[in-house]
């Protein structure tokens, strides 16, 4: 934040004097001196509403009691919160609330952590003067996950306000008036919303509760473990609450973690995936063609022996390993160390390959560092935000909340380039908050960005110092965009030149600007080029390198960033440093007291290629399921069939694991300790909440034991030991405070880019060739939906209530043209194959596009082809051209 002198005000609360910034509310000031003013409707995240009247306080020189939640402090104010008058007032307010509140505390899930209970206890309104019959609302079904008990409602409207102000969903409404006010969705319809669980968490009483854990516990029976959610790269802190080693519920607390108490449906309702009955509980070894249970000793000895034999026979270069970026940093670090030392090969990769590698590469290339130059706080405080291909509400919901906060609370100007139509629906739509929205198909992101850059240049918005510092760079861009005519851009994007100019002005003329890119860019061809071009935009407008400004690529998996930093992508050593960086190699081998293996690394597609060519003899897959997740055209199954010895370390018996020779059961995040690094590069502690399911073990322990059996002891006492070693190699792993320190761009790298680096591919990046599209086809996008994350979440019963199967979403105009209505069976087909599914007509889908959730893509995957990025080795397989027709 820029250093602006904050005006302060001095006041006295209950005899304690204090100084607070002007505009602070009395209730907040009181909290700072440890005085808790009772309240129901006040919440730090919400605008004051002052409807519950519980927070009345006495303020000198004001004749009547005032609501502390809506009164700002004033110079010399003298506040008293505990006088007889105030206590009487609190008592009366409670008398009114209790006039209607039922006495069902013994069966209320909130009992024991209920504000109304606590205040009743404190102010003991023992006798009620009300003789009237209590108001009774008829019980009605609300939703499969959220339960409503309106008789308990104190009508503070926190749920309604949270749903609107924070989530921007507006699914809840207070209907009717006065005592008869109740919270409803729409008429008699059951609730249809984002299911973030925010209403449950923010309800001060037991009016809105979770049905997943209903009647299963009393709050004081629960054991808490603060850990980190694994369902996206946002890295939300969650509290897993357990009873007798059973996961009961998930909470999050205000002020804790990067999410500051907010969660999404996946985080709040998705916790059952880890304890699904299908979890692997013992090691499995293939005997006579069948996988049969074995002891750990048998399984590990078998793996170690076979590895040793193969190594002796063929050398270390016939081995490869892939690990999922859902693992902890400790797991990822030890995996690469295991592969490099115990096995002796650099042929290892992780699922960060699928997109994060592009992000990190683009950051490194221009700003010289591999982490975000901004934090979530910078997003909330930005004056201008540009979102490109993020689908942020569904992919990274909590980062999305920071964007919503920036726009709704702080009035930021939002520009969106998204595959979305700005329509209102049951889940929030970020395009509705945009001042300038460009509806774009994934292949249109590039021309839109080029249009913005052209507008910046032509409107004279380019940064002045830049023209002196890097005239050649500026001229190159000037020439490049000059060669692109407005009619070309207008035809490519469907947006007018005027709209680009307006958007460019809004973006360039701000002091703090952040660009966020998501999977729509990072997982489509041309990803790292477009990410670099977006940094050109920041450089041109003078935002690059300024505090609070920069490019923020969103990570899809919880530890994508960690996987890169641990050196678990094939081109990197821990640090991350280049695999060929001699200095880094020396540093690593000095710490490991061992020489690093020579020889090239292999990316996931190359590993599959070698497997297909039968040059790969042994493959170690940790939590990766290429057969079940890559499109059929990647021919992963065929490739893995050619591997002599396949070891899978998994939670479930996936399609790949079914082919394995040995399957080792691993612990889920709920059962292990360690750290995750979130999308903004914040390292956070993961703590186990339950004991390992069955005989499953933390991944790093398995690597450690295997290494020992292979004669390369890699021994660690616990995950903390590993973290100590990581700290020696990777900067930024001293567990930080509550907020990360954003990386500062390295000026030499920026200068290198401005002087000559840009020239490498500028021509290519600024050239636009319209894609060739067959007539009558739609672009199918197989991507992330709000209610699931990968295939893992499809094991969570709560999330299955929200989305249990795949359906193809179509734009209403396309559907009408094809004669398809909601619920119809449809046939999607192209040269690669066909798939039958159900149609969903969704007005937020742009014309010409259709979407299918990747979590249920077992059949839809047949339609996808794979193309591989020449520069980064990233396989792209999210979109395809398909013919859509009504199934006969």
């Amino acid at each position, binding site marked *: 934040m820029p250093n602006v002198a904050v005006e302060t005000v001095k006041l006295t609360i209950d005899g304690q004097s204090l100084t607070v910034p002007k505009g602070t509310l009395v209730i907040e000031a009181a909290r700072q001196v440890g005085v808790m003013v009772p309240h129901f409707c006040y919440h730090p995240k919400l605008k004051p509403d002052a409807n519950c009247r519980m927070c009345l306080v006495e303020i000198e020189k004001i004749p009547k009691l005032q609501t502390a939640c809506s009164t700002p402090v004033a110079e010399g104010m003298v506040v008293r919160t505990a006088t007889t008058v105030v206590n009487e007032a609190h008592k009366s307010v409670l008398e009114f609330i209790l006039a209607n509140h039922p006495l069902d505390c013994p069966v209320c899930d909130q009992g024991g952590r209920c504000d109304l209970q606590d205040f009743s206890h404190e102010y003991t309104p023992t006798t009620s003067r009300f003789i009237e019959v209590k108001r009774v609302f008829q019980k009605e079904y609300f939703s499969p996950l959220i339960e409503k008990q309106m008789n308990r409602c104190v009508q503070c409207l926190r749920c309604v306000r949270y749903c609107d102000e924070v989530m921007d*969903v*507006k*699914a*809840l*409404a*207070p*209907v*009717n*008036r006065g005592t008869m006010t109740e919270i*409803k*969705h*729409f*008429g008699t319809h059951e609730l249809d919303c984002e299911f973030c669980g925010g209403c449950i968490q923010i309800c001060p009483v037991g009016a809105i509760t979770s049905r997943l854990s209903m009647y299963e516990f009393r709050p004081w029976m629960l054991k808490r473990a603060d850990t980190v959610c694994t369902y996206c790269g946002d890295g939300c802190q969650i509290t897993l609450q357990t009873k007798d080693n059973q996961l009961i519920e998930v909470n999050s607390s205000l002020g804790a973690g990067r999410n500051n108490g907010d969660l999404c449906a996946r985080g709040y309702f998705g916790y059952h995936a880890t304890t699904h009955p299908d979890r692997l509980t013992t090691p499995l070894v293939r005997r006579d063609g069948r996988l049969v249970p074995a002891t750990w000793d048998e399984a590990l000895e078998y793996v170690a022996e076979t590895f040793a034999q193969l190594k002796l026979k063929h050398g270390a270069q016939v081995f490869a390993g892939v690990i999922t970026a859902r693992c902890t940093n400790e797991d990822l670090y030890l995996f690469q160390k295991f592969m490099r030392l115990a096995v002796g090969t650099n042929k290892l990769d992780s699922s960060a390959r699928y997109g994060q590698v592009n992000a990190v590469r683009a950051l490194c290339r221009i700003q010289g560092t591999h982490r975000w130059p901004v934090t979530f706080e910078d997003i909330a405080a930005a004056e201008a935000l540009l979102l490109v291909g993020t689908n942020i509400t569904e992919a990274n919901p909590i980062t999305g909340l920071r964007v919503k906060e920036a726009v709704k609370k702080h009035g930021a100007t939002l520009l969106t380039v998204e595959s979305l139509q700005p329509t*209102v629906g*049951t889940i929030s739509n970020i395009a*509705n908050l945009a001042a300038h929205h460009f509806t774009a198909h994934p292949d249109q992101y590039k021309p839109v960005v080029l249009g913005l850059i052209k507008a910046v240049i032509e409107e004279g918005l380019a940064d002045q110092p830049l023209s002196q510092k890097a005239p050649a760079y500026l001229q190159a861009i000037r020439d490049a965009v000059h060669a692109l005519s407005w009619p070309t851009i207008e035809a490519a994007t469907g947006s007018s030149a005027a709209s680009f100019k307006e958007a460019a002005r809004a973006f360039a003329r701000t002091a703090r600007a952040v660009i966020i890119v998501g999977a729509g860019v990072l997982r489509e061809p041309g990803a790292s080029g477009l990410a670099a071009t977006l940094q050109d935009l920041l450089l041109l407008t003078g935002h690059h390198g300024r505090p609070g400004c920069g490019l923020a690529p969103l990570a899809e998996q919880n530890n994508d960033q960690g996987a890169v930093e641990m050196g678990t992508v094939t081109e990197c050593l821990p640090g991350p440093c280049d695999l060929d960086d001699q200095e880094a190699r020396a540093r690593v081998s000095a710490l490991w007291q061992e020489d690093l293996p020579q020889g090239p690394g292999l990316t996931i597609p190359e590993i599959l290629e070698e497997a297909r060519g039968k040059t790969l003899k042994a493959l170690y897959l940790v939590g990766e399921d290429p057969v079940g997740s890559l499109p059929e055209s990647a021919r992963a199954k065929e490739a893995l069939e050619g591997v002599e010895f396949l070891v899978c370390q998994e939670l479930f018996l996936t399609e790949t694991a079914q082919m394995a020779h040995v399957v080792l059961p691993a612990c889920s995040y709920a059962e292990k300790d360690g750290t995750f690094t979130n999308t903004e590069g914040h390292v956070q502690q993961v703590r186990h909440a339950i004991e390992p399911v069955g005989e499953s073990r933390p991944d790093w322990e398995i690597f450690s034991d295997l290494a020992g059996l292979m004669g390369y002891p890699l021994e660690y006492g616990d995950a903390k030991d590993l973290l100590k070693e990581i700290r020696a190699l990777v900067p930024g792993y001293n567990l930080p405070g509550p907020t990360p320190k954003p990386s500062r761009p390295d000026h030499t790298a920026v200068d290198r880019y401005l002087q000559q680096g840009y020239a490498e591919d500028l021509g290519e990046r600024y050239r636009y060739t319209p894609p060739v599209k067959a007539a009558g086809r739609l672009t199918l996008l197989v991507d992330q939906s709000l209610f699931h994350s990968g295939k893992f979440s499809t094991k969570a019963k709560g999330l299955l209530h929200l989305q249990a199967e795949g359906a193809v979403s179509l734009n209403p105009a396309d559907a009408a043209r094809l004669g398809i209505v909601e619920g119809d069976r449809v046939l999607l087909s192209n040269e690669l194959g066909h798939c039958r599914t159900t149609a969903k007509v969704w007005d937020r889908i742009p014309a010409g596009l259709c979407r299918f959730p990747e979590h249920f893509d077992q059949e839809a995957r047949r339609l996808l082809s794979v193309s591989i990025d020449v520069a980064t080795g990233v396989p792209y397989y999210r979109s395809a051209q398909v013919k859509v027709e009504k199934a006969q």
Partner: protein
Amino acid sequence: MLKEKYTTEIADILSRYPVKRSALLPLLYLAQREQGYVSEAAMQEIAGILKLTPPQVYETVTFYTMLNLKPLGKFHLQVCKSLMCALVGSDILIGWLEKKLGIKAGETTHDGLFTISKVECLGACGTGPMMQVNDDYYERLTEEKVDRILADLKRDGTSALKTGPFMWPEPAPAKRGA
């Protein structure tokens, strides 16, 4: 669909407000004029026009007693139940109406003529007890007066005893039920 039928009227309403959402009440009146009540489809359509969610429209409809969520009788008897009228006997008036028509407040007579509703203050506190029948006020009501009004309404569709409304800026555009 309202949009097709009232294109110019909706455009006119929208043009009056700098904030789109402000047009909610006039649009709901429009919908009610069309059907006699606000249907779910109308709420969804209005939500679409104003970029609101259906629950936001629904909460507004339920807040105002002037907006109805189900079809009503030809004459909507809206009896003020607020404090001033209550002090001079609005509950007796409601009881009387209920007895005369054989229905409870909130219900409609079998012949579809009358619906009784208890509503919040209608701003005629000096002349209570009072009721509003469709767009007309009837004030200082007594049992005899009510009998005459009901008979008049049944026979003529209106009654000479009506006294208002006084605060209505101009006659309502279309007479529902007349």
